[in-house]
């Protein structure tokens, strides 16, 4: 029997003069998974932060098992049995996996840690969730997908009564997501907990949730059992009726024909790097959008990082515009008009206290300066144009750290585009971006290639995204890539996944 575990009513949150939550109500039942959706900046993360004690609300009441509660700190919420995975990765990089898993709930007697017990429990939990780690690794050395899994494992293992997950799957791949969906459903049922999941990928919402709530500009616009709503209804409640209609009417992307393609601007032959890249060959031509697909751990991100000079090249040759290319640093890559958007927002290095506009203009100030004096107006106009085109919602004149996660991502894309790249390397470009804007961004990427002749290389764990935005896709397996192309128009997600799993070596590019 699903009893009401947590009832929030009339939650109000203001930041300065802006009201972010206008009296939001949310009812979480034990044994249920509750989906929370809404456009970027709708207030989903803010709502979860209020429930998790990380942010103090300006109004409203929260009842936990019928008793009113108010949390002064995340520690207080944790003590009351609420566990939360926040949107931004928040593991401590200087600690080990085990230390992170048990942070603030260490196994100890009289304050003395029982390291053996923690190590064993951690190893068991990690293995049960398909992570081949000992637990003694420093988190700083782990890839994003593993970090995200570790955070989720940490929250699930807390024996909480309410579990809040803010976009937990952005870095995960299909297999991991399927397993997570399974786990969440099981945990909700077996442990009788209430789970909230924020997610922009609606198929995941439909796969895992019992109930869905949609927020729009800080107000609840949909609150219903999942069985009673259609996919379209949810989309509509996220982006509004008109937008939804427009989205439907939008013609599918026209893929460039393979015939008249200019000669490649960037080529790699037999490239290997010390950590994880073995043998990569690829060609990237101006005006094309090339997808790079592979399982987690196949070295996709590492390849992009290597092309951008973030990691050293071991062997093999790379050429850019028919000249040898071996960037020693991102600066060197940028000088060659190679630009990269990383899957880790924090690693992209925006300056949190600068507003979005200033962050975007920072790398291109030289273009707008004369003798070292900046023509600020001109620089800002250009930045605002792109920010609007990418539909950044929120105050672009306020410190960028205050934008919602998805809007920060859009601003980072804008920053990359403003650098007028000739080679654009995108790692999970629409991570955390809502359904309405996603199509917009895909169209934008395609137009960059088609109209400005940019060579774009896209990595994504979402097969549908690659098929929507790319002309062709190349596959990476265990640090190897033959460079053989598969036409996106003739692929579907299942085929793509099969290709990535196949172990037969493909013929290598000459």
């Amino acid at each position, binding site marked *: 029997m699903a009893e009401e575990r947590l009832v929030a009513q009339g939650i109000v949150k203001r930041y300065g003069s802006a009201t972010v939550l206008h009296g939001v109500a949310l009812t979480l039942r034990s044994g249920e998974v509750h989906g929370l959706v809404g456009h970027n900046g709708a207030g989903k993360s803010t709502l979860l932060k209020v429930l998790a004690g990380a942010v103090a609300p300006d109004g409203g009441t929260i009842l936990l098992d019928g008793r009113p509660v108010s949390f002064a700190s995340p520690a207080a919420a944790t003590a009351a049995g609420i566990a939360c995975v926040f949107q931004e990765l928040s593991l*401590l990089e200087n600690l080990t996996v085990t230390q992170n898993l048990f942070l603030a709930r*260490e196994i100890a007697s009289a304050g003395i*840690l029982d390291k053996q017990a923690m190590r064993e429990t951690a190893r068991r939990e990690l293995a049960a969730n*398909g992570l081949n*780690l000992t637990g003694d690794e420093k988190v700083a050395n782990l890839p994003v997908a593993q970090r995200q899994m570790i955070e989720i494992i940490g929250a699930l293992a807390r024996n909480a009564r309410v579990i809040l997950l803010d976009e937990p799957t952005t870095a995960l791949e299909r297999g991991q997501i399927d397993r997570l969906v399974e786990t969440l459903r099981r945990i909700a049922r077996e442990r009788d907990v209430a789970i909230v999941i924020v997610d922009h990928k609606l198929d995941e919402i439909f796969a895992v949730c019992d109930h869905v709530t949609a927020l729009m500009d800080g107000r609840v616009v949909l609150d219903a059992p999942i069985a009673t709503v259609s996919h379209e209804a949810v989309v509509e409640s996220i982006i509004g009726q008109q937008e939804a209609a427009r989205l439907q009417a939008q013609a599918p992307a026209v893929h460039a024909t393979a015939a008249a393609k200019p000669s490649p601007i960037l080529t790699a032959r037999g490239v290997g790097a010390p950590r994880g890249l073995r043998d990569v060959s690829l060609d990237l031509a101006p005006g094309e959008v090339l997808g790079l697909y592979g399982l987690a751990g196949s070295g996709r991100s590492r390849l992009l990082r290597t092309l951008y000079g973030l990691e050293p090249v071991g062997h093999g040759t790379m050429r850019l515009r028919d000249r040898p290319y071996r960037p020693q640093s991102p600066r060197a890559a940028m000088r060659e008009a190679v630009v990269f958007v990383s899957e880790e927002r924090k690693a992209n290095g925006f300056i949190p206290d600068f507003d979005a506009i200033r962050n975007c203009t920072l790398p291109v100030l030289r273009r707008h300066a004369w003798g070292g004096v900046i023509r600020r107006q001109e620089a800002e106009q250009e930045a605002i144009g792109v920010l609007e085109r990418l539909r950044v919602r929120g105050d672009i004149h306020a410190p960028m750290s205050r934008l919602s996660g998805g809007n920060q991502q859009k601003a980072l894309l804008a920053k990359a585009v403003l650098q007028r790249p000739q080679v654009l390397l995108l790692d999970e470009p629409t991570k955390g971006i809502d359904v309405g804007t996603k199509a917009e961004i895909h169209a934008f990427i395609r137009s960059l290639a088609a109209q400005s002749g940019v060579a774009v290389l896209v990595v994504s764990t979402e097969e549908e995204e690659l098929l929507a935005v790319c002309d062709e896709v190349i596959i990476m397996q265990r640090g190897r890539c033959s460079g053989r192309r598969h036409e996106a128009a003739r692929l579907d997600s299942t085929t793509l996944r099969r290709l990535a799993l196949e172990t037969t070596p493909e013929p290598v590019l000459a």
Partner: protein
Amino acid sequence: MMKEGQAVSSVTEKPVARKRWKLPDETGILGMLIVVFVIFCAMSPNMRTLSNGLVLLLNGAVIGLLALGQTFVLLIGGIDLSTGANIAFMGVLVSLLMAHGVFWPLAVLLTLAAGTLMGVVNGIIIQYFRVPPFIVTFSTMGVMSSLALIITGANSISITQPGFAFIGQGLVGGVPVPVLILAAMAILAGLLLSKTILGTHIYATGGNREAARLAGVNITTTTITVYAVSGLCASLGGIIDTGRLMVGFPTTGLGDELFFSIAAAVIGGVSLFGGVGRVQGAMIGAVLIAVVSDGMNVLNVSSYWQSLVIGVIVLIAVIFDTYRRRSAGVPLSETLRSLLRTHGMRRTG
């Protein structure tokens, strides 16, 4: 078995988590200590005597204690500039208490409590008023050093309870008491950091304050604790210095102590950015500084050179620390190679 491993590795990034025996981070600095010590020994036979070894440690004990306290503070990403002044004030305090007839063990306990309280005050101002630790402890440094002078009228206070000399001058089994105190404190501190919840939370706070808070770590507790530990260590330093001289000087501890203690921690691998470092390292750093000071004494090098040499050692240590952070997880040899490469000093052949 094999099959399982493969299935798993397809969803994880690293194929197999190799178990590899790693050198502790402090290996480099320990090597440096040994080299420096051997060089001094080769240059002067006096350096090699056991008695000199004990003098060296005795002279280094107070700096070691301060470094210990500073390690805690640095670990949460803070800094405590007030420790030197704390020595002056606490030395005066313990002397005054005894001069007013308080039996010396009680005077010592009261002074330790006062030092801890001073640290708590630092911690509270930093945590609740959000003033940067640099500013807060800089201010308390001024306050404490002035108070020491004001209370005493800049006069020294001689100590009349002979029992008190045991703390500064006593020997147990031939080892000076201050050295024993330092050893005991270091072991306790090391255990606290590595074996307790509080220790883990201190590292967490220094690693990323906001992330630690969100995870449910009580950062108020960790912040106040580390400054309290630093205050406690400083008052212990003040008591030892006073016990060695059997006079309370209002200006003890205002020399190189603060600089040398921060240097010791940093040389030992305690990061100024927080979250990284161990007591072992800081203690090796303190011994290294003691060896350099003592060695230069023995060799009759002007003491004017001391700060210069230690300054250079700190610089090398910090450059190294920065490189290590940038290339986290990369083995030492690799770090060195990249250091050389970026500075165009790559060996040919």
